[in-house]
């Protein structure tokens, strides 16, 4: 698959048609010149905007407007159905002074790290293996993607059973290797690991396929040259494969980070009837859950909006850091 995106770099706008009135002779006896040509020109000029309009209109209505309005709400005290009252930065200072907010922030960060880092590392390894010439490659690819077809709710409900401390399969297996009863929901780190494993299970295959596609676009000459220089397979992987698919790695890191920041369904359902608080001791309450807690359990939509905007600021911050890292990487490579 070619990596190049050709788009419309093929020369000037309409090179083939010089004047609309000349080719109208072919079977179309419209009025000479005049409105037809005008309509035609208008059609060519306006139609691109007409095609992209539905997307941007919907985005404005259901994306941009709510995004900004959430920001506005975050400076107000507002409950459902009441008038908003301006409170300035109070919602934000309240968050700053609330230990549950900090817990949620920390949990979002740790859950994000343990659900994305191993996931992407495994995905890249699997992609490398899937890139070998082998039997049943089609089967392997579909099989590792199968978890992608399950929903958050279904996967979590099944994993709750597997991770049950008393009768779950995982503790039984761990018992065989001498690891005692792990409390997968009541203690903090085991619970976070269990929740991360749901995320990892659902998304590793998907990311592996994305990496695989990028790897297949790496020109074979690079490997030939490396092999002639005596580079081992591992060396080729590190010095040829990884640098060649760097943009894709960057892309998956961004997508996974965004996904991890908004983690909601997995901890909610994993917690059963204490899901909204992220376990009895908030041990896996994420920012997203905290926002739902504030907005829909407590009914403080202004506070919930402030949480949402904190999430946006965090995402922007992470995005800026990632961009800086990418830039400095590029400079190091001298390109």
């Amino acid at each position: 698959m070619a990596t190049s995106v050709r788009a419309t770099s093929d020369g000037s706008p309409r090179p083939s048609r010089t004047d609309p009135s000349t080719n109208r002779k072919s079977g179309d006896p419209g009025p000479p010149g005049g409105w037809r040509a005008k309509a035609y020109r208008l059609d060519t000029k306006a139609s691109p905007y007409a095609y992209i309009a539905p997307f941007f209109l919907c985005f404005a209505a259901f994306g941009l407007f709510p995004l900004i309005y959430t920001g506005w709400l975050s400076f107000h005290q507002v409950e459902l159905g009441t008038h908003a009252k301006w409170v300035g930065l109070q919602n934000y200072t309240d968050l700053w002074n609330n230990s549950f907010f900090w817990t949620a922030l920390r949990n979002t960060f740790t859950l994000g790290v343990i659900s994305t880092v191993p996931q992407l590392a495994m995905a890249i390894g699997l992609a490398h293996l899937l890139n070998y010439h082998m039997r049943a490659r089609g089967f392997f690819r579909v099989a590792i993607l199968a978890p992608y077809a399950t929903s958050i709710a279904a996967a979590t409900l099944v994993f709750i059973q597997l991770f049950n401390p008393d009768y779950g399969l995982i503790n039984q297996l761990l018992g065989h290797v001498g690891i005692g009863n792990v409390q997968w929901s009541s203690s903090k780190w085991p619970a976070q690991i269990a929740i991360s494993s749901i995320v990892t299970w659902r998304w590793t295959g998907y990311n592996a396929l994305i990496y695989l596609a990028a790897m297949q676009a790496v020109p074979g000459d690079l490997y030939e040259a490396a092999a002639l220089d005596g580079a081992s397979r591992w060396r080729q992987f590190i010095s040829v494969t990884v640098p060649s698919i760097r943009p894709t790695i960057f892309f998956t890191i961004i997508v996974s980070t965004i996904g991890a920041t908004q983690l909601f369904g997995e901890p909610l359902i994993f917690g059963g009837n204490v899901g909204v608080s992220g376990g009895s001791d908030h041990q896996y309450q994420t920012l997203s859950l905290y926002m739902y807690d504030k907005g829909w359990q407590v009914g403080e939509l202004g506070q919930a909006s402030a949480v949402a905007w904190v999430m946006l600021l965090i995402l922007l911050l992470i995005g800026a850091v990632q961009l800086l890292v990418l830039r400095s990487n590029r400079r190091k490579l001298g390109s």
Partner: protein
Amino acid sequence: MAQLTQQIPSAGPRHSGMSPRAARRWRRAGAAGGQQRAGWITYAVLIFATLVSLFPLYWTVVAASRTGTELVTPPTPLLPGSHLVENLKIVWNQVDMTKALINSTIVATCVAVSTVLFATLAGFAFAKLEFRGRNALLTLVVATMTIPPQLTVIPLYQIITKVGWVGHIQSVILPSLVAAFGVFFMRQFLSEALPVELVEAARVDGAHSLRIIWHVVFPIARPGMAVLGMLVFVQSWNDFFWPFIALNQQNPTVQVALQGLGSGDHTINQAVVVCGALVATLPLLLVFAVLGRQIVGGITAGAIKN
């Protein structure tokens, strides 16, 4: 598009002047463009990964066909039992699964059709038409992908409360009518699949733009539209956050019903809960079993060129 199965011929050493040892190392290091032959370790790791991927799915069937008591008594059953029908009946008693399945089908179908339609139009414009501000607007499309739903749900919830749409599925359909991912996907597809000469030729023949869309763009875009439709359907079927907020147990989608099943107040029979998960997953797994390769091709094709 989906050329995943393409095989670069595994070339032997073409350099005749090579010593046998160097040739062996060359072969072992795999000089055939990353298409080395897999060793047994590769197979072992991949088989293990396949087992890890598929086991929870298999075990869903096992647990869904057991009684609640069997499930919570170690050792955990590993073979299917005979209580599937019984559990299904309880699922249907506890939540309105029929309504949930119908709702999910309606929502996912509407969202998929509209996303594919609008994404094809916009993707065509971005791929093949010249207009002022194109690149900036395309960047904007990509940038919108990074906005998490958490930033939009509060005003949306206020709005649907005001117009009385809480618990009605149009509140779930409307905000999902377009998707930036889809626009990007169709742009990538059409910039490769649609020769610009074809559009030019139609223009020269005096076709207006709607004719071009209908007679030139849609026929060529069809394979891409099919793949995108499947991806969007899967995504919409599995969507949780907004449906959970906007709907309720009286009129749920499948995912919302599942959440209700899992956190219900009634003494929870875990086999029934897993049985519900099976019902929610089965339609998609069937689609997957039939069209898995196309979906694999679609995911890779849509993501590759960034």
